[in-house]
């Protein structure tokens, strides 16, 4: 009996490496997601959102945020591909997770979703600040909008706002337009305008401000208007994606199902835009959309197929690269008309837009400039919402060899003629001189 158990356990252990599947360069969509909650009531009150993730094939692992057994990595390997923090009031994470561990997790290319709420803890604020987003310093401040609030039967304090100020990007929000406004109730944050990696996905209307709804305003609020971002995303330089939202209740079933009517407009929508907005956004954050890869960089002289080790000045060459976009299940050809290649040595000598054949093959042909040195074929592609492509291939360029110049220079023909006529003249003269009597 004991031997049987030993064999059983040993066989399971051997099969374990094949059972774990994570995201890899061939399959960039995340698979295993750790969800940290304040309490398990959130699991049921936000079940719509979690079910939509599960139905797309994600492996959700629900844990309490102060559970002492949670860990992001074990023996140097990460156990999860993405992390969802639905724990706005946690003071200290359990187990081996802390701000540094979360930042390392993101730095190694994994994705992160953070939902804060009113009275968010300093820990959550710290994580958000590390990601480039600054929540309002007042812990009990909420976003209040007296002209963009959501109309309801009770006269509330206008903290439940309906916003339809979305970022204009089909990659991030999907191609179908979100018609209904999105309900939001929580804290706002601001972005540093110098930071080019963080984007405002849902902004507040110009009449919104961030203040404590229960107390009178003593000083003008620091965060006002469209500078308040309700939901932001960050795409890091290693293509990790972070979603930061100021409201946890935005993800809840109640908000998903409720109708919405924005104050000041007469249209009453049956269903708020929350579900569509957050589902499409989660597709983007977990790399189901907008993930590019560039393969097969090739260059050769026009008319040849082999790749030379170096080019000569004034050569005609052709550069080609294949770019694919991940569709969630397979690599599809990426079609765009703004991918450019540079022929670069300290500054781009040639900058050409690559033309594509609709099957993902981008190519351009140009003449090598009249400068010799070591150049690079550089493709630096950064488009809103897409992963950044950064390719560089070094290639030397040599000057003409001494026998590659033109043999006879046309402007020098008179001199050639003069030299030969002098020789002929000398020849004739010598005959005449000798035979002259």
């Amino acid at each position, binding site marked *: 009996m004991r031997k049987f158990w030993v064999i059983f356990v040993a066989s399971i252990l051997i099969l374990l490496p094949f059972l774990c599947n994570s995201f890899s360069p061939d399959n960039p969509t995340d698979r295993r997601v750790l969800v940290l909650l304040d309490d398990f009531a959130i699991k049921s009150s936000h079940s719509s959102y979690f079910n939509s993730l599960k139905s797309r094939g994600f492996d959700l692992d629900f844990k309490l945020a102060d559970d002492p057994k949670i860990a992001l990595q074990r023996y140097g390997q990460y156990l999860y591909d993405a992390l969802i923090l639905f724990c706005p009031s946690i003071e200290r994470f359990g187990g081996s997770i802390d701000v540094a561990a979360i930042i390392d997790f993101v730095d190694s290319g994994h994705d992160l979703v953070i939902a804060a709420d009113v009275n968010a803890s300093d820990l959550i604020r710290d994580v958000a600040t590390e990601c480039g987003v600054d929540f309002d310093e007042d812990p009990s401040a909420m976003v209040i909008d007296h002209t963009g609030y959501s109309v309801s039967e009770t006269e509330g304090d206008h903290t439940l706002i309906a916003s339809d100020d979305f970022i204009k990007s089909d990659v991030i929000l999907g191609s179908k337009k979100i018609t209904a406004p999105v309900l939001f109730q929580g804290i706002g944050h601001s972005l540093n305008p110098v930071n080019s990696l963080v984007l405002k996905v849902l902004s507040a209307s110009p009449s919104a401000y961030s203040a404590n709804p229960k107390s009178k305003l003593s000083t003008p609020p620091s965060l006002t208007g469209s500078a308040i971002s309700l939901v932001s995303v960050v795409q890091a330089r290693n293509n990790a994606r972070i979603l930061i939202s100021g409201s946890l209740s935005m993800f809840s079933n109640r908000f998903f199902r409720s109708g919405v009517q924005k104050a000041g407009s007469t249209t009453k929508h049956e269903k708020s835009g929350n579900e569509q907005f957050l589902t499409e956004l989660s597709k983007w954050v977990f790399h189901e959309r907008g993930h590019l890869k560039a393969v097969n960089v090739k260059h050769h002289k026009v008319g040849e197929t082999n790749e030379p080790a170096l080019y000569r000045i004034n050569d005609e060459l052709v550069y080609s690269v294949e770019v694919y976009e991940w569709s969630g299940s397979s690599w599809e050809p990426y079609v765009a008309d703004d991918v450019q290649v540079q022929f670069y040595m300290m500054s781009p000598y040639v900058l050409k837009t690559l033309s594509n054949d609709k099957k993902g093959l981008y190519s351009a042909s140009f003449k090598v400039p009249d400068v010799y040195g070591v150049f690079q074929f550089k493709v630096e592609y950064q488009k809103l919402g897409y992963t950044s492509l950064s390719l560089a291939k070094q290639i030397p360029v040599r000057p003409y060899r001494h026998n590659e110049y033109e043999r006879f*220079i046309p402007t020098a023909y008179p001199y050639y003629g003069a*030299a030969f006529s*002098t020789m002929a*003249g000398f020849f004739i003269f*010598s005959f005449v001189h000798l035979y002259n009597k």
Partner: protein
Amino acid sequence: MGRASSKEDAGALFHSLRSAYAATPLNLKIIDLYVGFSIFTALIQVVYMAIVGSFPFNSFLSGVLSCVGTAVLAVCLRIQVNKENKEFKDLPPERAFADFVLCNLVLHLVIMNFLG
């Protein structure tokens, strides 16, 4: 009076030069003709360079040097062959001509090389 006489003098000088030149032997006149031809070729090249610019400068130098060099050698030949010249009385004219041919060969070798 002075101006008229200078004009008359110029005219008389020109006529005397012409008549003296007519008396030179034929072979010397042939050498003079050859020198004139090569200097004329050199002048054409200089005018051409002034118009077009000196791009293949080595070709220009080579062309002009061939003309000027062969003119200089022809002048040397004329000096050595001229019977009125007391200095080269004992030099056989064949020796002078052989020198002329040899030097011209070297000259043309050099300019062919420098012509590019």
